[in-house]
Every structure is written in structure tokens, then in C-alpha cells.
């Protein structure tokens, strides 16, 4: 993390994008998209989280070591979710017996 000082304009732009995304999340919930409602809500949330991490938390300008830790957190979260769902969400698939 070098002394990379971002212009104020960057923060205001990110803020504006976050507000637009919040409005989108709220609006899209009123359309019946079936299973895509959840997909849309999560996609917008992931995008919002990504720009907060990259710009507000300065990860875009951080050292490679910080990148590894950040990506590592997402990777381990992926393991946690994948192995949990692998069990609980497949129990109904049993067709024998």
C-alpha cells in the first residue's frame, strides 16, 4: 500500500454507483424473474462489495500480499459454502430406498 492518495472525485463516483445499485436492487425485486430474482440481487451485491473493496478499501492500489489475503478470504468462503451446500442441498436428491 504505497501512499496512493485518490482524488475526492473517485470516492464521489463510487458513492454514486453504490446508490444507483441500491436503487436497482430495490426495483428489480418487484419484477417476477423467478429464480433470477435471487441471482440478480446477489450479482448486484457482489458488484457493490467489489467496488467498496477495490476503491474505498484501496485494495486496487495495495500490495500483492494484500491481494492474496483478500482473494483467499473469498476462496475459503467458497469452500465453506460449497461443502455445506454439497451436503444439505442434495439430501432430497436421494431416489433409492
Amino acid at each position, binding site marked *: *500500500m504505497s501512499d496512493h492518495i485518490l482524488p475526492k472525485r473517485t470516492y464521489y463516483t463510487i*458513492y454514486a454507483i453504490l446508490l444507483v445499485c441500491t436503487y436497482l436492487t430495490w426495483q428489480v425485486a418487484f419484477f417476477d424473474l423467478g429464480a433470477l430474482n435471487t441471482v440478480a*440481487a446477489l450479482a448486484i451485491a457482489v458488484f457493490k462489495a467489489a467496488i467498496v473493496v477495490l476503491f474505498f478499501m484501496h485494495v486496487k492500489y495495495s500490495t500483492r500480499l494484500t491481494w492474496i489475503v483478500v482473494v483467499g478470504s473469498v476462496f475459503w468462503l467458497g469452500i*465453506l459454502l460449497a461443502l455445506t451446500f454439497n451436503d*444439505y442441498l442434495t439430501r432430497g436428491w436421494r431416489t433409492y430406498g
Partner: protein
Amino acid sequence: MLPDPAAHHHPALAHHFADLEQQKEAASLGMWLFLVTEVLFFGGLFAVYSVYRSWYPEAFAAASHEMVVWAGTTNTVVLITSSLTMALAVRAAQVGERRVVMWFLAATMLLGLAFLGIKAFEYYTEFAEHHVPGAGFEFEATHVRHAQIFFSLYFVMTGLHALHMIIGLGLMAVMFQWVWRGTITREYSSPIEISGLYWHFVDIVWIFLFPLLYLIGRHAH
């Protein structure tokens, strides 16, 4: 002969770091490692939420309809705004604008308090409507059992999030004092920066909580 440590030693530099840059990186990296544990801590709750929601989608949608949507939406905007003021406080600390840091920290704390106030109002509404799981829980008969699971998750997840907000407010109060008495300088702004990382993380948790708790199947009504 050993070099005189005082000769090139910045007052803000701890002796076990080579220079201020390394000290700064270590502080930020340490905070990120802590945030990894936080990601997995909240991740476990999101996993439980996902499993139960996939098992009882109708009950979760029905229970989600009881949420005070305007309050949740307002709180999302309040938190995002507090992240902006936090980011601007960090920037002001980096360029050494002491008074500006204090103004933005104060604004961040006010927004944090506003969030908790709105959250308290929501909890009050839910208590009044008997939506707190337990003996007094009331809900339409078809979903009464599984709606309780939704509300249990709702109270645990938003409750732990609110606890993080309270800790964040305490952190900001300490930071405000450090800026006030001059501990924070342009060369030593790490405490503000890593407190900012924590604040933004708590904001990110809410970014996921909001659509998952407040907006399930909204189109049906």
C-alpha cells in the same frame, strides 16, 4: 559499530519496522487477516440462511414480507453514505488535514448512530407484532414453524451486524480522540486507515443482508 537508532528514527516508527512504509503495510495486512476471519464468521451464518431458505422458500418469502422495507432501504443508503464519509476521513488523514478528518469522523459516527436508531425502531416494531421467535411468536398458521427460523436468522444476523456497528462506533470515538490530541499525523495515519477497513467491511455485510432479508419475493405483493 551499531548505527544510532535515534538518528533516522521517525517518532511514529516502531523500532521493529524498517521504515514507515513497511509499518503501514503490516498494519493493513494484519487488519485484512482479521477481516478474513470475519468473512468466514458471517459466511457461516449466510450458509445456514441459504440452506433453510432453499428448504422453506414459501415461509421465508412470507416472513420477509413482514420486514419494514423502507427502513431497510433507508439504512442501506445511510450505511453507504457513512462509507463515503469514512473514505473521505481516511483521505484527509493521508494528506494531513486534521480538522477535516475530525469532521468526517463525526459525520461517520452520526450516520452510524442513525443506522442503529432506525434498526432499534425496526426491532421495536417486530417485538410489537410478535415476530420474535419463542413462546409469544405469532404468524399465519401454515408457516408459523418455518417463519420462526427466518426471524431467528434475522435477529441473529442483524443483531451481530449491529454489534459490529457499535464496536465500530467505539473505534471511531477512539480515532477521533487520537486525531484531536495529535497522535494521528500525515506520516502516521494507519490507525484511521485500518479502522476504515473495518467500517467498510461492516457496510459490505449489510449490502448482502439487505436484499436477502428484506426483498425475498417482493413482486408477489
